[in-house]
């Protein structure tokens, strides 16, 4: 980084919110940097969530959440197509099991209509059963939302951030922000061992957003970290449902859902429990609650097909809505709880408009690159694969057996605009190790390819966060 360089905009945090804002800003003529404390992007809530693009009937009318969810969901579909992100608009169902819940479903319907959600329908038990045959016989009615979708959330964030990088945005990893100082009209951000000068700051720090806010401004909100655990089941269970199946929301959130993933697995969860900032453990009590609750919707879910449990932390706040506010040149984009993933591009648009209203106006570029190539061997036809291997033999060698990921795709991930540096970084970019053997077979091969491509010894390759070493050299 150039010494003494002044950035126009610094974004703190590179989860889905930071990535979407970076993408939106990269359409403009400006110097922008994203500062991330972890060793990769999409390392917080973005990588551990339900992976749902909600239709937009949940948030109360008139809230930012309502407006940005509907807008974000619309934009998400276009973006995933342009940037080659796995996305499937499969629709969602909210199940009612009694009269009180039928009232809730009716309320959600009205709310959805008011929020501008298209195609909502209330279905009877028979109508629900006809499109989702494995639902419980205790279901009495449901709300059907055809615009709800599933997405690969971390690839969504990676794609947005990568496109931003291709269009000139810088990303600084492994740099936790520890101080923000106002200096004249600008700010000085201390991040790791660097000082970054910037005219504007965007606080997209997820679960740490209250701390980051307090570095620059008087305290004004609290983040209340809230944990949700999940089951990810084998593809043998992937067709158990064909929609995102919710139960009626409660004060604690949208409840336990059962849904297919874009990779063809089945995701079941989450629970909701207030937690520590960094507590991503899945406890036995979390897991038994999820099992017990999910089978009320879909009694036949076979939890023996589990391939992974994980937990994510929601950046809930002490306010009812997203916190997107301007304070001089400092912009909070905080408390981005559910439906944050669905809202992200809407949030980005809104934030940039808010910046413009506050004097941070940047002209649009003429040459914005708004595409992203991603080779995906396992979704190709036989003919396409044959062509691909002819062009580059490395696409002919399968490394991950479960997800059929080739060496060429792994090398693409390692040399991408935001390069994969860890085994899990490779997984998040090309799905190697995501499948039923959970990297048992391909882990050693991915580690070998990473070491070879990066020209480092194998024992220096990490699994995930900084410090998560995998192997040590055998002593002779």
């Amino acid at each position, binding site marked *: 980084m150039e010494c003494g360089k002044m950035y126009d905009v610094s974004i703190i945090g590179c989860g889905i919110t930071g990535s979407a804002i970076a993408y939106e800003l990269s359409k403009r003529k400006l110097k922008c940097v994203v500062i991330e404390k972890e060793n990769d992007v999409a390392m917080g809530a973005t990588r551990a969530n339900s992976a749902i693009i909600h239709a937009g009937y949940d948030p109360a009318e008139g809230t930012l959440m309502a407006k940005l969810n509907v807008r974000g969901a619309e934009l998400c579909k276009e973006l995933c197509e342009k940037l080659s992100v796995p996305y499937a608009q499969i629709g969602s169902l909210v199940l009612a099991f009694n009269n009180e819940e039928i009232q809730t479903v009716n309320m959600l319907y009205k709310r959805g209509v008011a929020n501008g959600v298209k195609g909502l329908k209330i279905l009877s038990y028979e109508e629900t059963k006809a499109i989702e045959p494995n639902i419980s016989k205790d279901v009495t009615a449901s709300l059907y939302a055809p615009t709800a979708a599933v997405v690969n959330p971390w690839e969504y964030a990676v794609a947005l951030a990568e496109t931003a990088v291709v269009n000139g945005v810088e990303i600084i990893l492994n740099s936790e922000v520890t101080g923000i100082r106002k200096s004249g009209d600008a700010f000085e951000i201390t991040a790791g061992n660097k000082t970054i000068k910037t005219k504007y700051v965007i606080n997209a720090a997820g679960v740490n957003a209250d701390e980051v806010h307090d570095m620059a401004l008087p305290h004004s909100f609290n983040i209340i970290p809230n944990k949700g655990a999940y089951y990810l089941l084998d593809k043998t269970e992937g067709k158990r449902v064909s929609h995102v199946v919710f139960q009626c929301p409660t004060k604690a959130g949208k409840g336990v859902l059962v849904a297919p993933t874009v990779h063809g697995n089945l995701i079941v969860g989450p629970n909701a429990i207030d937690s520590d900032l960094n507590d991503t453990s899945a406890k*036995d009590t979390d897991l038994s609650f999820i099992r017990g609750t999910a089978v009320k919707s879909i009694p036949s879910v076979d939890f023996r097909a589990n391939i992974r449990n*994980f937990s994510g932390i929601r950046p809930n706040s002490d306010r009812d809505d997203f916190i997107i506010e301007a304070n001089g040149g400092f912009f909070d984009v905080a408390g981005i709880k559910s439906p944050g993933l669905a809202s992200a591009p809407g949030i980005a648009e809104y934030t940039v408009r808010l910046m413009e209203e506050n004097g941070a106006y940047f002209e649009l570029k003429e040459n914005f690159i708004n595409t992203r190539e991603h080779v995906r061997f396992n979704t190709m036809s036989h003919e396409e*694969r044959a062509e691909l291997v*002819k062009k580059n033999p490395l696409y002919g060698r399968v490394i991950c057996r479960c997800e059929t990921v080739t060496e060429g795709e792994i090398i693409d991930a390692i040399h991408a605009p935001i390069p994969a540096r860890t085994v899990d970084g490779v997984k998040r970019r090309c799905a190697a190790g995501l499948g039923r053997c959970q990297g048992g077979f391909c882990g*050693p091969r991915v580690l*070998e390819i990473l070491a070879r491509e990066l020209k480092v010894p*194998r024992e220096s390759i990490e699994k*995930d966060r900084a410090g998560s070493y995998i192997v040590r050299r*055998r002593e002779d």
Partner: protein
Amino acid sequence: MYELAVIGGGPAGLAAAFSAYQNGLKKIVIVERDRELGGILNQCIHNGFGLHRFKEELSGPEYAHRYIEMLNDTSVEVKLDTMVIEITPDKKIYTTNPSGYEMIEAESIVLAMGCRERTRGAISIPGTRPSGVFTAGAAQRYLNMEGLMAGSRVVILGSGDIGLIMARRMTLEGAKVLACVELMPYSGGLNRNIVQCLHDYNIPLYLSHTVTEIRGTKRLEGITVAKVDENRRPIPGTEMNFECDTLLLSVGLIPENELTRAAGIDMDARTNGSRVYENMETSIGGVFACGNAVHVHDLVDYVSDESARAGAAAAEYVKGVRHKSDCALFENGYAVTYTVPQKLHKDTKAEKIDLFFRVNKVFGKSRIIVSSGDKEIAGFKRQFMVPGEMQHIILPVDKLREFDSIKISAEGEEK
């Protein structure tokens, strides 16, 4: 067009290909995804292989080498570094390797894909997700093939054979193996491995215990182990903490049958393998299966025997031998987990068949009973039977032909 395509070049595929060659086939291809033949044997550098098959004690690579040498003088073709992507019911095989994506056709197919290890997810161990949690086989590969150590303070969950072997191996390499923890009240591994890999190195074996928590945000920092009740639920108050940087999982093996399922072949939910006849033929005529892709074996010697039968049967098929659909079904009776084969062609020319099964209880003096309805067809005495050791009986086909359903059960002194 090949006469036979063998999917997998591990011990099962090697033995099937060699047997098919001995039985007269010339155009045989083995498709292997790894860079060399031998499969998992290549990382099993301990001895104990081949006592039955070669009447001497070999290491894994030596055992594989015997078969590779036998194949050297044959016309069997080998495609290495080649992954099979899809097998169609009409025996088209789509393969890929760096020299090209191609379809090969064969008159017959032997499925010999082996198995994979169950993971942390399969048993839902609660806790965080640090590095340092490996399947035992992955740690074995790192150590024996790549000279890399998985860690230095180790706990092993599961007393399957790979876990036991790795307890000894990690100890010999200077790691401290703190404990081997087994959920069941008995070990899942061979008795000889309990003695030679745990007792000889004073590594404690905790039966009826499990791991209830994994800790650490970067690298594994520690685990909690608790005793379990008769329903295998942890008993509060029995927790023990271990500070360790490595947890190896040896919690079972699952036959690899993604290709099999995609081809529409009938599966057995008990074995997770295809349902096979006495000649190892699957529900698709001319497609055979053998080795750990059918059911998980204890000894490679038995894999070789079974695979030789599959190879011979593939040769018969190519020569035009077809069976009538009339068959008898083998059923799992009392204390029997599964039976292989699951079906018997009544018109088979074989005089006797090999039948394999596992019990789900520990028995002392006991009997294996083969029956149909009220009629006992055969009985076999045993001094003891344990779930960790596969049972093998040989049945005369003449005594079975009249029945449509034949039950295998165990009875005797339960422990």
